[in-house]
């Protein structure tokens, strides 16, 4: 099955552009993004070098025994600005097993909706895997517009997940969990607060990277 790459409508592209532009206050512009682009079966595949993001200092955080999440959004857009022409996303969950002393990694993206599980014996191997994100399907090469394009990557470390958000909303809507004697007023306030709790702040651990411009013709077949 071909990976479902979404061609974006103008509205969705605008939203994404806004999301990509929602950098933390005071953040500088996008960092450089080394990228290898290849054509595979007529589709554009990217391999990103995220070593600038996956710094050695992450070892303490990724090895803390808690589930850490790295969300990666990759887009292709005209270098001079304009609507995004391709989008791909990937979510990587990392859990350091303190008994086995190894990193269990789960990767989910449009190509692998059932998720792929891998294990790395140490942080070095894990970092190598994270820094080299391969096989990112960016859709049919032929549909890319003519002209200079750039690949942009947005990397969020431990963003608030929708599941976490939903659990939190349910909790504040009914903190007593239906126990007898729960206060009605608190539930009303919590229900309204839950309703108003929508999109969370992406947080400060967000990185935006941008590749050098490239032309469609530069992409070589594999």
């Amino acid at each position: 099955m071909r990976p479902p790459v979404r061609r974006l409508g103008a509205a969705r592209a605008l939203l994404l552009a806004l999301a990509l532009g929602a950098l933390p206050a005071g953040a500088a512009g996008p960092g450089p993004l080394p990228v290898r682009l290849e054509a595979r079966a007529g589709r554009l595949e990217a391999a990103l070098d995220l070593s600038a993001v996956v710094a050695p200092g992450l070892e303490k955080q990724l090895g803390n025994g808690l589930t850490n999440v790295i969300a990666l959004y990759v887009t292709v857009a005209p270098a001079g600005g304009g609507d995004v022409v391709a989008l791909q996303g990937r979510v990587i969950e990392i859990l350091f097993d303190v008994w086995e002393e190894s990193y269990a990694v789960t990767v989910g993206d449009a190509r692998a909706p059932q998720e792929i599980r891998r294990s790395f014996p140490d942080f070095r191997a894990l970092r190598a895997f994270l820094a080299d994100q391969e096989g990112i399907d960016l859709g049919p090469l032929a549909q890319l517009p003519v002209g200079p394009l750039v690949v942009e990557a947005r990397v969020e470390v431990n963003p608030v997940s929708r599941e976490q958000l939903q659990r939190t909303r349910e909790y504040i809507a009914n903190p007593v969990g239906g126990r007898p004697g729960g206060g009605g007023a608190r539930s009303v306030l919590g229900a309204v607060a839950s309703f108003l709790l929508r999109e969370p702040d992406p947080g400060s651990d967000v990185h935006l990277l941008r590749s050098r411009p490239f032309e469609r013709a530069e992409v070589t077949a594999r």
Partner: protein
Amino acid sequence: MSGRPAGAPRPRGRLPRFLAALRVSAFERNIALALVVAAVLPSAGALWLAGQLADVSVALDPRVVDRLEAMPALYGDLFQARKQLYAEQARAIARGLPRTAEAGPAYLDDALARTPRLRRLTWADRTGAVVAEREAQGPGPDGEWREAPAVVSLPGGGRLEAVFAIEARYFAELNETRELAELVQGLDALRAEIRRSYLRAYAGLLVVWVLLTATLGIALARRTTRRVSDLVLAVQRLAAGDLSVQVDPGRARDEVAGLARAFNAMVREVRESRDRIVYLEKISGWQEVARRLAHEIKNPLTPMKLAFQQLEARWKTAPERDPEFGRLLADVGEIVREEIGTLQRLVDEFSGFAKLPEVRPEPADLVDFVEEFVRTSPQLAEEADLDVAREGGPSPVALDRALMRRVLANLCANAVEAARPARARIHLGVARGPTRALLTVADEGPGVERGLRDRIFDPYFTTKGTGTGLGLAIVKKIVLQHGGEIQAGEREGGGAAFTVSLPVRDAGPGAPDPSPTAGPEGGYNPAP
């Protein structure tokens, strides 16, 4: 109090009426503003306090977060210690392995027996073939457990694998701790959003609350402000000269209703004063006319009478007298004397009307006055049956006895005239109201037509064949000069009823105003 002064124009159509109801006066706007400010200021303070409270209640202790996040690492340290312990124990067992394979099982059994949590030992040679393998026969550690292998390479080749038991609950606890730490971590990440959503929810509920409070307050305030606005409108109409304006005080018993009642009383007083002045001015004019007429008529009467007397005297002394002329002269003389007498009486009435004396009131009790009038009017008793009824206590008034007696006499004379040829029945009544004393003169005659009740007090207006039409005008003037009112009405059971209201002498200035238009207030009602 109704929504508008009595007589004010009412908007036609539903939409204009609806828009008129929505119109807000400056007073209402100020009241509403005060209510909104009173509702918003505490709410703003409450919102600020809620923000402070949210900071306290939503914030997680960073030490708790840190310790929770460190828990997996602590378990990692625990596992490391266990692994090192197991490795050390495995190395100790490996160091004591016998040289011969035959002694191996016994040695392994002994090692299993003396080493806690050791469950299985496998001795393999350099080729990987198992030399000896023993497993613990006794029960394992309490609860579930999982294997923790420790492998030791032997100096001459081969290896010893020792499988220890580690409590499975450690892993369950680790998972629970990890989930809890991740939840707290997520909450900590969402803390700002949770606080913001709580504040927004609180602010939203406050806004709804303020709106409800303000709406209710405005609705309640409008019940008062609308009445004040109606009063303002009524005062404006009064200032424009409309003395018929009245404001419905409604059923409320508050100050605004009292103000409306006082306003109505004031307007009625002003209207009555104006009517009184107008009437008295009109009467004064008619009195001047009467005086001139009396003068002009009276002057030629005496010469006419003297001239005719001379004619009669000459006739009586004439030497030759025609009998026919004598009879004619006698007839004419009778006519002339009768007409001159009529003119003389007319002149007297005009003069009496023109020269009405000034009222000199003195304290009197109205009941005593009426009873005295009946007692001292024998000629009236000859012409009519009189009865006197009284209600309430004494009725102290200020009256000019002579002039008020003339009032009663005129009214009774009218009753006698109205009853002819039958004998008249006259009902006199006195009643005491809070501020007015009422004197009623009623008869059982044909009554006064409703359309004529206002005009019968005009001078020279009469419904009788004879008479000058001055009697009731004189009556009304005298009553007005006493500060009173007179109304012509209808007696229950038939007949006319004239009601004279006089101010009670000891009525204080703060006493409520009686309603002259509301009929005889607590007054005497002549029995049929």
